[in-house]
């Protein structure tokens, strides 16, 4: 048991170390000190209660985004639509958050979260349904839906839902009501607890329910699943709906718990990081939590790193890409560690664009 856990953790762990090492070379190339930079990164993400709060806040949408990719992965689908799903969830949660007043928190807050979740489920489910009915590849469709979502949320926050207070010219919604704001318990944002609960729920559903078994069957071998009587089309559509809902919840928590409103352009790029998180976690819903905490820590500390060591915060993006590369090509690390090939470790998705 412990040996198999070690084997599972070894590759992501070495990938992180290699990513940081190459990152150090890049820091040196900018005439800065890697030790100063990485120390600042660590202090900025863990140094005091504020830093911890920042890390947990950054990790929250990453957990949701990672789950959105991991869950679809289990059914053999690649959800690159996290960005669009997140935006849709963020704008609709904010819409309900500022649009209704006079409700008690126990009703208003869940209602706002639900609005985001449902909108995201529709957005993700659309890609899954198209895949199941027409064979349209979910990678292309979800990428396109990202752009459509970007435009749609831009329009919503610049026109019907625009914040008209004072002389605001920015495309953003008004602040959400207090009754729809997600509270913080000390250094722990409640949104983070929601994310952890979502991860645990995903794990339970996938590993302990009939539905989860069907999802994994479709992921392993679509044809075999079909012959054994599983409704493959339904599984693909519903899995993408769940994935969309998860990413959207990440956006909803951003609007209701961090930004206090939806503002166009603020969450750009956040949805894509879910891919790194999911691959780092090897598509395991529980593994998503430490993976998101790690990346969240780096993001929380990035501005301090820039301040103390003069290193551009975009270094974090490069390190993430490197980690992704080493996790995706485990053969390099396996060779470094002299590990045996284990076929179950290779993640496989690829197929043509049409047909299912």
């Amino acid at each position, binding site marked *: 048991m412990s040996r198999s856990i070690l084997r599972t953790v070894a590759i992501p762990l070495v990938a992180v170390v290699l990513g940081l090492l190459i990152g150090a070379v890049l820091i040196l190339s900018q005439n800065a000190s890697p030790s100063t930079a990485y120390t600042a990164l660590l202090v900025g993400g863990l140094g005091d209660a504020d830093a911890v709060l920042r890390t947990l806040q950054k990790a929250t949408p990453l957990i949701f985004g990672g789950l959105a990719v991991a869950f679809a992965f289990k059914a053999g689908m690649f959800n690159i639509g996290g960005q669009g799903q997140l935006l849709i969830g963020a704008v609709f949660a904010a819409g309900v958050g500022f649009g209704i007043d006079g409700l008690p928190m126990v009703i208003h807050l869940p209602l706002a979260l639900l609005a985001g979740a449902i909108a995201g489920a529709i957005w993700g489910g659309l890609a899954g349904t*198209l895949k199941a009915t027409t064979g349209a590849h979910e990678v292309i469709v979800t990428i396109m839906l990202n752009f*459509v979502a970007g435009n749609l949320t831009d329009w919503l926050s610049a026109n019907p839902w625009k914040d008209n207070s004072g002389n605001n010219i920015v495309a953003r919604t008004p602040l959400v009501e207090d009754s729809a704001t997600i509270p913080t318990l000390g250094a722990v944002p409640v949104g983070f607890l929601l994310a952890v609960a979502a991860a645990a729920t995903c794990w339970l559903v996938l590993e302990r329910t009939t539905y989860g078994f069907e999802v994994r069957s479709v992921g392993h071998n679509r044809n075999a699943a079909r012959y054994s009587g599983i409704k493959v089309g339904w599984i693909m559509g519903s899995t993408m709906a769940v994935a969309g809902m998860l990413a959207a919840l990440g956006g909803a928590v951003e609007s209701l718990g961090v930004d206090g409103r939806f503002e166009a352009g603020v969450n750009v790029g956040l949805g894509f990081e879910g*891919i790194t998180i999911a*691959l780092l976690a090897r598509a395991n819903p529980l593994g998503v939590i430490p993976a998101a905490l790690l990346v969240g820590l780096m993001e929380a500390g990035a501005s301090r790193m820039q301040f103390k060591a003069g290193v551009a915060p975009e270094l974090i993006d490069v390190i993430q890409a490197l980690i992704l*590369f080493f996790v995706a090509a485990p053969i390099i690390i396996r060779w470094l560690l002299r590990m045996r090939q284990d076929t179950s470790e290779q993640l*496989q998705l*690829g197929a043509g664009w049409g047909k299912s």
Partner: protein
Amino acid sequence: MGEVMKPQQRQLLYAGLTVMLVIIWIFYSANGPQTTAVLAGTVRAATLLALGAMCGMIGERSGVVNIGIEGQFLLSAFAAFTIASMTGSLFMGTVAGIGMGLMMGWLLAAMAVGLKVDQIIAGTVLNIAALGLTSFFYDRSRSLGIGKYTNIDLGPLADIPLVGTVFFSRPPLTYLTMALLVVVHIALFRSVWGMRTRAIGEHPGAADTVGIDVLRLRYLNVTLAGGLAGLGGAYLALEAVGTFSRAMSGGRGFLALAVMIFGRRTPFGAYAAALFFGFTTALQNQFQLNNTFDIPPQFVGMLPFVVTIVVVALSGLVGSMRDPAALGQNYEKG
């Protein structure tokens, strides 16, 4: 093969073309300058898509999906811009862009063919790495310092009304792209290389038994195809825009994939599709410029992406558009 058309489809195509020409003629006689502007914008937007589609097509014909075109565009645009700015030569910048594209192609091949990483994940790595690297090394204070590529009139051809301005008074990389469409078409469908390429995409096992080195040819093709995307990056930075900005490829690497699928993985088909997508973009710009219609710009902005979704969904429904049989599968020598 996908590139052969049925007679009915051919008739439909000709009918469609005729209708389109009539519409263009009506609009041109009603408002000449605006029609010319929209059509010139169409060709401008189509060039990048055509280059990306050709890059994707060569990979897919060999059995390798490339969703990293977006990243190849971006990093090549960055290289082209930086080198052109440092050397003061657009030509050197273009060479650097192509070189970077080849390197990215090689990296994709190394991952997807050599290390047998899932092809979709390998492409995603390129995209994320390109965004990270260009943001990290982006220097706000750097400017091109020289003018971008300018239009070259092709003698008397450029004097033809409408057609002359739209097709024969273009900057150099646009002409190069048009020439490459012909070259790639001949190479894919009339040469030994093309036949072998299509063979390893359809049935690598059979190709292997007649002595084609599947992995080597895939390596070569994906690398070379990267050069086309690299040219696209150079076009973007040095001809279309004249500078570099963060994430400037703006999703067009993905649109190129839709263009490729819509064009049935043939260069001319892809160019037709690219012109169509380019038209929606040009129309959108024109709408934004003079507010002819009361449509919010965001909705016009959605148009190319919604069209792509519809196209991809339809191409799945219409059975005649068939993927290469071994697409997406890494080849293991038996």
